């Protein structure tokens, strides 16, 4: 995993250089966080890029995993409890926060049950692939305040590509588990990923048309301009304001992508038990669970960067705003989970192929025409 980071950054550096010369536009550094870490350590050149990249990746990955640790065992319970008039965890530590430690110990100390007949290498690799595909996506997310690990020209495409690797992990988990519920869950996951990833990316492409770039920092930068001024208050040109329709489409497709109500088809407890993760226990289960939550936050991060102006916001520092926006998306997923029934699998796919796909292409074409006329 780490080695690929280095390759990535080297590749980016060259890619950026060509771009800078071709476009003649001043580009921000290709790897802001890595560069500043290297600068702090007084290193430069290849050594600086490697050390800075590794330390940067370490920091980002840990921040995200810590976020997930708060979200999974604690925040999720608290939020759901608030929606259902309950109190939830409040016995261990202040506000029950130490339940995170207790749960971590509990989950990790459980027996890892390997069912008879599982397809061994695939079954073991799947729980690693799923969380790390989401972590990979965070490499290009502009957290603001200079916290961006890498900023390649193709940042957005990289984020989607990395996140899509999770589908592979889900298939591996579903197929290798030697369980029919897992198989059904894996098949459903693939069907839903294909059906909703296209609208997701096509909708994101409409933003790219607006911004004129795939580079994440640029997409964020474009949104800082003022859209309209009302009574002295400048409304920034966040794409959620510019094109709310695309924003709604993106959020919906995102919900399906991360498998949350009303689209929690791949897991569908009460129908297919737990879908692709039915046979996983202990550490493997923790990894899958972690993967799901990191995916939710990645979805939130993409929504924040593409539509909500990234780290922009008054008073507070940029990365705090970005973090808040990610959590807002998480809150939204939990809200949907508490209040909205699940669609049936065929209705879900119908909505994807016949509804979302058409709407997202309509959005793309309209955006292209508008941008072509105005610009």
């Amino acid at each position: 995993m780490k080695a690929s980071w280095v390759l990535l950054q080297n590749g980016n550096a060259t890619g950026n250089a060509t771009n800078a010369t071709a476009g003649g536009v001043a580009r921000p550094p290709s790897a802001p966080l890595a560069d500043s870490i290297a600068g702090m350590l007084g290193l430069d050149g290849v050594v600086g890029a490697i050390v800075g990249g590794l330390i940067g990746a370490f920091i980002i990955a840990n921040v995200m995993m810590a976020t997930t640790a708060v979200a999974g065992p604690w925040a999720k319970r608290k939020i759901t409890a608030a929606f259902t008039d309950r109190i939830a965890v409040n016995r261990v530590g202040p506000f029950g926060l130490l339940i995170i430690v207790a749960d971590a110990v509990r989950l990790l100390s459980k027996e890892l049950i390997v069912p008879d007949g599982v397809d061994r290498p695939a079954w073991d690799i799947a729980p690693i692939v799923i969380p790390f595909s989401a972590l990979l996506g965070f490499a290009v997310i502009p957290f603001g305040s200079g916290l961006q690990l890498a900023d390649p020209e193709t940042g957005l495409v990289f984020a989607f590509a990395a996140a899509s690797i999770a589908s592979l992990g889900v298939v591996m988990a579903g197929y290798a588990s030697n369980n029919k519920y897992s198989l059904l869950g894996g098949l459903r996951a693939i069907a839903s990923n294909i059906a909703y990833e296209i609208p997701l990316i096509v909708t994101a492409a409409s933003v790219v048309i607006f911004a004129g770039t795939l580079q994440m920092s640029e997409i964020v930068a474009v949104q800082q301009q003022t859209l309209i001024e009302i009574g002295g208050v400048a409304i920034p040109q966040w794409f959620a304001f510019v094109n709310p329709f695309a924003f709604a489409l993106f959020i919906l497709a995102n919900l399906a992508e991360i498998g949350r109500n009303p689209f929690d088809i791949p897991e569908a407890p009460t129908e297919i038990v737990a879908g692709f993760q039915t046979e996983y226990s202990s550490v493997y289960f923790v990894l899958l669970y972690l993967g799901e939550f990191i995916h939710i936050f990645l979805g939130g991060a993409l929504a924040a960067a593409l539509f909500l102006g990234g780290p922009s916001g008054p008073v507070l520092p940029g990365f705090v705003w970005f973090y808040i926006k990610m959590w807002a998306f998480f809150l939204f997923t939990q809200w949907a989970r508490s209040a909205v029934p699940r669609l049936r699998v065929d209705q879900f796919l119908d909505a994807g192929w016949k509804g979302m796909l058409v709407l997202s292409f309509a959005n793309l074409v309209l955006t292209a025409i508008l941008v072509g006329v105005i610009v």
Partner: protein
Amino acid sequence: MSLEEPDPTDAVPAATSADAMEALVSEHVLSRDDHLNAPGYVVRPDAVQDTLSTLRTEAGLDHLSCVTAQEYEDRYESIYHLKSYDDPTHEASVVVPTPKDDPRSQTAEPVFRTADWHEREAYDLVGIEYEDHPDPRRILLPETWQGHPLSLNYDQERPQIVPLSEHANPLQDDQRGDEGETMFLNIGPHHPATHGVLHLKTTLDGEQVVDVDPDIGYLHRCEEQICQNGTYRYQIMPYPDRWDYISAGLLNEWAYARAIEDMAEIEVPEYAQVIRTLGAELCRIAAHMLAIGTFALDVYGDFTAIFMYAVRDREKVQNILEDLTGQRLMFNYFRLGGVVWDLPEPREDFFETIRDFLDDLPQALEEYHDLISQNEILQVRTVDTGVLPPEVAKSYGATGPVARGSGIDYDLRRDDPYGYYDELDWDVVTDDGCDNYSRLFVRLRELEESAKIIEQCVDLLEDWPEDNRTIQSNVPRTIRPEDDAEIYRAVEGAKGELGIYLRSDGTEKPARFKIRSPCFSNLQTLPEMSNGEYIPDLVASLGSLDIVLGEVDR
């Protein structure tokens, strides 16, 4: 009471007197063996189908509510308890004796589909064999069980150990057929949506259900035999609480109380009847709340808001029931001839609690309607799924909200009145949708009707004269009904018609105690509703049936 007069145009063919019915099937009737509730016609084992179909078409007895099997010293006997959906007090029993050495009898399955499971149970527990039965397997006990536990010569000491090789192994090795693209899937006995230990042997074509075969009996606790070993007066009453244990305890107790009170001619004071009615309707609300909550759980997919709200409101009812009976789960509150104790003191506080609950209920119901019945996604999920046409429902003996959701206007509280129901003002809720949504909607609206009944009961109890509060009539300590009296009596339980068949032998214990469980019959309709639909619809249909395995398996 606000029931409409039966519409004369859809009246059944009018052969309703006992003799007129006998004339219809006179060629088969060997003799009369009248029960306390209905005339009984003894017919030959090879004339079962003829007799039943004649009675069904000519006498309007279109509801086979129960099949009781039992063994006498000299014969086996199958009793088909027939009723009319239009008028449940119009009843008849068809008694089919079979010889000891060759207990064979014709199956009734072609006439009433519900006979399928009932006869399997009769074979399983008593040992009568039904010729031409489409599926002559055991139903409650494992296939490898030795002997028939309710037969007279059953050896309880006999070990039930059979070689492992003879057990059907549910976890068979991977097997692939040559043709076809179907997949076999065990849903349950441990699965989040089976509401207990139900096992559905499902054949899937992709995600669609080709066939589903419910496998029950995991929770069989020999309730019938336990009751046969208890004395009428005290020892049986605690057990009904354990059939439908989803807070429907008082409704179950009433089923037994009604049967034995009619059999032993025990009067129940009016005051006690009002308390019984009050308690029973509270139980119905609690049971329906849970049914609605778990149905939402099946469709929503998680322990989400609607489930929690339903449980929260059910909790209020549970607290009232706890005040009334002293128990939360196993009430044991009814006694023969009344109830065990009077309303809790101070009475004003108790009434106040109930009134508070009733005042809050409309708002809670509004919330349920917002979250469930008016939710578009839920409507897309439930409307026109799990369709159960009324004719099919009748053939399977479906009752309760399942029947009323198929437009069958059948409610024993109104049609075969007991307790204080006929003095009160309330309506029977029906819906013609026949689908999962209708069954849910019927339950939601029945909550309102139950609340109406409770409110009237509270009004009555508040003004009840101080000097006339008899909670129990004078009942002898030992009850010995007359020898060989037989009765079948049913009440409207939370899930439907909960009936008890009793046969006395002159002692203080029943010679046969048969429970007609509404869930048992309702569950039988599951394949009809689910074949050809998706797995999520199968799960939703199962949830809409609202079964309790404690009552299915007994």
